[in-house]
């Protein structure tokens, strides 16, 4: 990462800003959870979108994934793909869309 002092001072300012942003979005998450949307599923979807946004801030800025070596992206791409496969397939093993309801 950055090695010259100016860049590091710049980074420190950015880090503090992101810290405040994360705190603000935490308040937003809590507040949103008390608003009744069209259905509770929508609450979950909106809550997860905000959480994902916060997580991306942490991953991109704090873990400086916004400028990392290519190799790290390759490793993470596969990992995320497999983790998503877990989520999706686990979800569908409880809610089978191809069930023949007429039987």
């Amino acid at each position, binding site marked *: 990462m950055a090695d010259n002092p100016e860049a590091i001072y710049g980074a420190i300012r950015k880090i503090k800003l992101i810290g405040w942003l994360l705190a603000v979005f935490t308040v937003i998450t809590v507040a949103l959870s008390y608003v009744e949307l069209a259905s509770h599923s929508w609450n979950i979807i909106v809550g997860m979108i905000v959480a994902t946004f916060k997580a991306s801030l942490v991953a991109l800025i704090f873990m400086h994934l916004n400028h*990392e070596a290519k190799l790290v992206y390759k490793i993470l791409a*596969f990992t995320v793909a*497999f983790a998503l496969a877990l989520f999706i*397939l686990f979800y569908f093993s409880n809610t*089978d*869309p191809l069930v*023949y309801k007429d039987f």
Partner: protein
Amino acid sequence: MSAAHTQNNDHGHDHHEPGFIGKYVFSTDHKVIGIQYAITGLLFLLFGFFLMLLMRWSIAYPGQPIPGFDLVSKVPVLGWLFNEMIGRWAPGGVVNGELYNMLGAMHGTIMVFLGIVPLGFAGFVNFVMPLQIGTIDMAFPRLNMWSYWLFFVSGVGMLASFFLGTGSVQTGWTMYSPLASTTGLAVTNVWMHGHTWWLLSMVFNISASLLGSVNVITTLINLRAKGLTWMRMPFFCWAMFIVAFLLLLAFPPLEVAALLQFSDRVFGSSFFLPTGLMEGGQHLDISGGGSPLLYQHLFWFLAHPEVYVLILPAFAILAEVIPANTRRPLWGYKAMVYAGLTLGFLSFLVWAHHMYLTGMGTMMSTYFQITTVLISVPSVILLTGLMISLYGGSIRFTPQMLFASAFLPMFGIGGLTGLPLAFTFIDLALHDTYYVIGHFHYVVAPGTIFALFAGVYHWYPKATGRVMNDFLGKLHFWPSLVGMNLIFAPMFIQGMGGFHRRWYDGGKYFEQTHSASNWFTELTSKFFGLFGMDVPNNLLGLNVLMTFGAVILMLGQVPFILNFWLSVKGGKKVKNDNPWDCTTLEWATPTPPPHGNFTFDIVAVRGPYEYSVPGMKQDYFPQWESEPGKAAEPASVNTKVVPTPHH
């Protein structure tokens, strides 16, 4: 890199020499750790095999005492161990259902997690891989030591569970809930329970695997010698690279499964227990709301990639053994690399084909049937590459080549018998029968284990400086081949006859098993009749044949054990550092390699399999030589340097 290397050459011997314990017990040297893994793994394979012999006896002769039981019990130390572990569960030497269940569960666990993975992956990768990529050690040597000792603790935990009051775990190596969540909980102390110890040992084992695979991948990524580009890397390293990724990403969900099952048993939660579950006509004192299906998903998310963890090291070893013994380049190196990567990727997306019988839904079944059929394509490419590599070669039939050539048809049988199981409609009939047992044992027993033997014979001279005896090697090979086939081939017949995999009596008390017969059972019956043995002409008779095969297999291992230990001091000394005339970098080191491995700054200047290059006098052209007999200069290698990303 070169700076570091020059420094090694100058100051490598200034180091304080570590004592015996630092050198051979708590060593951080990758070669010692590799050998530690290999020997521990071999011992566990032997122990797992011994458990299997007891099971086979019970299957062929249910209710009859194990031969030699009283004799073994009376041997001073061994007898005590035997009695405390196994004997006390077998009154009068007869294996009962309880003991059979323990043996079955532990046979699977030990073979998979404590035998083949430590030997095939950890042992070989630790010893061979850093040499093959031309580096001085693994990227994190101390972590490497830790992962061996964590693995060791897990092994000791598994073995120790035999000594507990409850005996070891009894619910099959798959530990399916709800049975595995609820059985045997009425004990004085749930912490001193074989099942609890199994789960905790697995947590240790998984941690060891994770640390090991992080180390392997980092080493392969960052420590390759100058000039050793990805596509100059031997297939061995590629395959191990893929295996390490499988371990890294597939093991954590199993850790989750183990932790959740642990919570179910010790804290009384209901992760895997459905609402209203009853046992013995009574509702259990649980909240319910969980699902056994969840356990199976988490378990098979690991356990299917685990199949490739078991088989890829075999391909890795054979990709080195076959070219060296046919004196021909590996056929389709690039295709094999890409096939291996595809195989690794797809292996994460096929797990639920083990679960067709759970009724998990039409969409899931359809999806998993498709991916399962897809994954057979890269598997076939790998096998085909090895087979075509034989064509036109001038084959040296060393013991390692014998094992390698037997692997090809054996793995072929194992793989092809698996294809029908990919389809739900066939799987529904064959699920949990001996057909499945036969299928996966053909893949891992005469498949992977044969490849592991080939690897032992192949790299033994590098580790010890001596060659294993050729005659004993052949004496090891032939009985093993015959024994393996006698055990596993009849399983297909029994399986299609409906024999269930968990019958401790081999099906004796089921009426239907007595009536089915065919030409094979008739042959078996007549064959044993020649020796005056009364073997019935039905599917049950095959049990005797298989047990007979197991005994042949057991006898076949005696020459190997002798050969392995006696050759350390008594084997023929190698004529030079490269006794098999190989091309890869591990053969450039002194024999055995010293701490730090290489005596000169090694670089790679060509691909890994340059055998029988047209127009050359010798039939191999090592990776590290610029011209025959002369090591390439580091300065001559012009690697493309990618600038470091700037921040």
